[in-house]
């Protein structure tokens, strides 16, 4: 039974909305659960500071939730807007938008839970440092949200751009690929950024005198941990904005979809690995702040090497888009 274009667009919008909220709920739930667990174990150690720990748990959970709220916004837009499109490309665009924010919210949700949990544990240990710990946790979890914001930007572009003039055949795959690239690409960086912030909260609680170095190096480490997500965003921008020639063959479309998948999946491991590397650096700078310079240098080199597989993925993705 044939369906008309409007039906397909409704199907894509509803399916995209479901994917966005379904995947988008994973990360925040894990992150918030982790925070609550850490807060409980901190309270078991130090029931006296229940006020500060309870407050910081709630604040941390509220930040961890924001990635999920982005997914909710996109799902709402997809469910309640009236899309009057003239091309089948919009179907792929709406699905891609849902996939992008759905996957993109996983990493930031999980990641933001880590610093909040470490801050709760730290307040249990060092109630005097509560103020500094809260500030550090807020900065750290806010930076963790960046990858999900990248995914949100891609979703908005995919929903609101006008694709009526682009050729249907390769473009459907390009838009789906763009969703995969920025969505999957955000997972690793989100979790990695959280691991770094966790190490810094733990370090400040252990050695309060090192707070200045630790916060600075945490920001440096988190910023570099974002690189795989930025490469994912770059590939998805190229896929969205490049002009393609119409074709009947299936291979060019598959190449574009594969470029998106390659960059998206390939960014997960390096993002996580860079986060782990940087967390090692931050943790030991907190214990041994006199050697901040040496540790930062080794950390940077280690992170740069851990990033190289993401760069190979980008090379393959660019070859798939521009060469074959």
């Amino acid at each position, binding site marked *: 039974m044939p369906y008309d274009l409007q039906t397909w667009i409704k199907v894509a919008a509803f399916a995209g909305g479901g994917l966005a909220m379904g995947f988008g709920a994973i990360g925040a739930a894990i992150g918030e659960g982790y925070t609550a667990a850490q807060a409980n174990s901190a309270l078991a150690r130090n029931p006296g500071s229940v006020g500060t720990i309870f407050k910081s748990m709630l604040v941390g959970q509220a930040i961890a939730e924001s990635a999920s709220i982005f997914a909710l916004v996109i799902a709402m837009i997809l469910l309640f807007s009236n899309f009057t499109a003239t091309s089948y490309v919009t179907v792929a665009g709406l699905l891609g938008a849902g996939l992008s924010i759905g996957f993109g919210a996983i990493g930031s949700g999980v990641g933001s839970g880590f610093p909040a949990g470490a801050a709760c544990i730290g307040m249990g240990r060092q109630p005097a440092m509560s103020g500094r710990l809260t500030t550090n946790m807020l900065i750290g979890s806010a930076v963790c949200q960046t990858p999900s914001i990248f995914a949100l930007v891609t979703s908005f572009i995919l929903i609101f751009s006008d694709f009526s003039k682009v050729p249907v055949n390769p473009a459907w795959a390009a838009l789906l690929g763009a969703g995969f690239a920025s969505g999957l690409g955000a997972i690793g960086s989100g979790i990695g950024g959280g691991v770094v912030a966790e190490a810094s909260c733990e370090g400040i609680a252990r050695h309060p005198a090192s707070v200045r170095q630790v916060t600075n190096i945490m920001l440096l480490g988190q910023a570099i941990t974002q690189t795989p997500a930025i490469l994912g965003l770059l590939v998805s921008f190229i896929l969205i904005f490049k002009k393609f020639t119409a074709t009947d063959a299936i291979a060019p479309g598959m190449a574009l979809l594969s470029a998106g998948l390659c960059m998206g999946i390939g960014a997960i491991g390096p993002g996580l690995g860079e986060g782990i590397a940087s967390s090692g650096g931050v943790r030991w700078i907190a214990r041994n702040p006199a050697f901040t310079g040496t540790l930062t240098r080794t950390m940077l080199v*280690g992170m740069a090497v851990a990033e190289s597989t993401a760069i190979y993925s980008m090379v*393959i993705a660019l070859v*798939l888009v521009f060469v074959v």
Partner: protein
Amino acid sequence: MAIEGADLVKAAAYLGAGISMGLGAIGPGVGEGMAAAKACEAIGRNPQEAGLLTRTMLVGQAVSESTGIYSLVIALLLLFVV
């Protein structure tokens, strides 16, 4: 739209190349990160040996990256040879 055999083979090769490099990048990325974290720990404990430890870290990372390079080679073979 009729799909020809050669077209389908090309499409599968492209998809395979992307998935090969994508999945192959996960393990080395995480593993190299762990190596770097441990190197930082060792330097934190014993900062005098920073040069030696950094070099050891790089050699270990180069070895753990080799599976990523195999994926790269397979992806390039799928793209240009098959």
